[in-house]
């Protein structure tokens, strides 16, 4: 028995790699389509946007780069579709230099799909350095922080920005964050002083750390990881890549849970043995 356990523990890890690749591949090729349950923290974001009057100003900050594209791009697409459907004026930007091209791509794609016009219905401001200083700068005077947008059009006098002087005139903002220069930074340097309502969308890695902000109302909603994106897609009843990925996600989680259980079974079988550290 112990011999078996020892041999099983020692198997080549590349076999496990194959197992996980299979668990992800199969459902992607042949999805089984389980229903997706919506959590209150995602619903809160949806409800807030749903209640905004037309032409309200919505700021979406892409605070991520290609390394978290699979999680945050679907969130961005779903939020943009919703905002454009509600005829909001959308401002986009990013704090993450290497994510600029990605953000611009998502913006152009969704805007074209929804028949929206750059400069009139939306503007992509691009990247600018500074982090917290950039947010303060936008809170004081948007046109000093971004004299021109990503495609080098001067921001002053743009129809989409009519009546917008600084962050105080933003009706709702969502930061899609993959790290600390995201939601937390937007609160500390932005909402704390300029009092706009905001929510967050994040990768799974940082989502648990944002719950204290959710509880205290510092953010009014939170979209966490691929599951959060799938929930949002369910709410706007337009399925996208997140919903498509959830079956693979389920399968992969169950494989991991199975592996953890096996690991511990073998561990307890071998524990009494001499010479092995506990």
């Amino acid at each position, binding site marked *: 028995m112990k011999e078996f356990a020892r041999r099983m523990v020692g198997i080549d890890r590349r076999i496990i790699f194959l197992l996980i690749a299979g668990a992800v591949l199969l459902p992607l090729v042949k999805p089984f389509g389980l229903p997706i349950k919506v959590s209150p923290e995602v619903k809160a974001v949806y409800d807030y946007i749903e209640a905004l009057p037309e032409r309200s100003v919505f700021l979406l900050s892409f605070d991520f780069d290609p390394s978290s594209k699979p999680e945050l791009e679907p969130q961005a697409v779903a939020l943009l579709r919703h905002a454009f459907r509600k005829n909001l004026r959308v401002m986009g930007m990013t704090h993450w230099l290497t994510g600029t091209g990605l953000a611009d791509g998502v913006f152009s794609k969704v805007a074209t799909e929804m028949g929206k016009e750059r400069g009139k219905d939306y503007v992509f401001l691009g990247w600018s350095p500074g982090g917290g200083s950039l947010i303060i700068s936008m809170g004081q005077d948007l046109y000093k922080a971004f004299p021109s947008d990503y495609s080098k059009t001067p921001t002053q006098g743009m129809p989409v920005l009519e009546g917008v002087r600084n962050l105080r005139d933003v009706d709702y903002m969502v930061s899609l964050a993959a790290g600390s220069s995201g939601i937390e930074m937007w609160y500390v340097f932005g909402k704390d*002083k300029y*009092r706009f309502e905001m929510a967050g969308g994040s990768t799974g*890695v*940082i989502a648990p*750390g944002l719950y204290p902000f959710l509880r205290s109302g510092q953010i009014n909603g939170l979209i966490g990881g691929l599951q959060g994106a799938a929930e949002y897609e369910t709410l706007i009843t337009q399925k996208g890549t997140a919903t498509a990925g959830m079956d693979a996600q389920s399968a992969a989680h169950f494989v991991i849970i199975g592996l953890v259980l096996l690991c511990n079974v073998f561990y307890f079988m071998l524990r009494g043995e001499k010479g*092995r*550290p506990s």
Partner: protein
Amino acid sequence: MNVVAFLCLLFFSGVAVAATPSLAPPEGFRVLDTPNDSGRSLSLVWKASPSDSKNRSIQVWLAESPGAAFKKVAEFPSNTRYVKGGDFPWWAQPAGKGAHYVKLSSSQAFPIEDGKTYAVKLLVREGEQEAWSELAEGRPAPNFFNTAQVNNLMFVLAFTGVLLASIAAARRNPHIRLRRIAGLDAVEEAIGRSTEMGRPILYLTGAGDMSEVPTIAATVILGEVAKKVAHYDTSLKVPHRDPIVMAVCQEIVKEAYVEAGRPDAYREDSNFFITSDQFSYTAAVDGIMLREKPAANFFMGSYFAESLLLTETGASTGAIQIAGTDSDHQLPFFVTTCDYTLIGEELYAASAYLSREPVLVGTLRGQDFGKAFIMSVLVLGTALATVGVVVGTENFNYVLDLFKDFK
């Protein structure tokens, strides 16, 4: 003729008003400069009335002087715009709780300028009936201090004082009592076991450079480990991914051997550089673990995604693993794969504990005072708030407001 008609009109309208319940104008209406702001804004305050309802609306009319033309700038149902608990601290209230409060800001439709006196009237309407309030005047001005945030400033000042005092105290006596840290006790055990088994000790200082606090802490702990290693005559291996950290660590290890009275046992190549690339470094360190099977692995400093690859391999070779990091995203992996983990601030505490450097010890002590204070505020505050509900008093807000965030 005209006079008669006028009198008749007066008489009949008087009758009309008397016949239906009259609409009372807002009471206690005042206009003030909005407190704690950058100017160009006025605040309106009036008493709440029991007859406020959503069918009764209030209009705000503004003029540049009492004689000038009035202009409607806002309209809302009369049962809205109250001062709610938590809007203002008790020391900076423009109006009492439950009163009406409206802030008028300068807009394109009606610019408000600092230093000019404006006249404001309120109009109450319900159905066909109307009633004007008294006229009130106010002059906007920018303020030099936001009194609502005075508690924030007090906190900053008090914390500065505590911090400076603790650092000064630590300079006088760096051996203030600090609690035992479990992970540190394990260090001795790990080194002892390596000696017994005749296998090397592997020590990693993490991904950071010398400007990062966790890296500094990691080098401090390395010094302590090296002293014990020198004492036991075990071999130490420290692979690096930053040349500057390597240079610093060479000095530290050398000094530790000298201090332990074993300068002869010091080997220059115990610190060595691998590469700065994250995954290539990881692959190389994994190779060392598999080939040389160190009996103890130390992971101190800041880590990213490579942590799991390192600790998993280490666990499979059966080494005792001790980790210490403040990279919270990697901590769950360290806890499950290592035997002991110094969590977050424990790493800093460990370095202060070992080095006894006054600034480190003093800062740790200062933060401890801060934490003790916050812990008592949380417990006592909850107790007061609960008693307040039970007794039905709001007097405790005089204390509780001090620890809230106001704008």
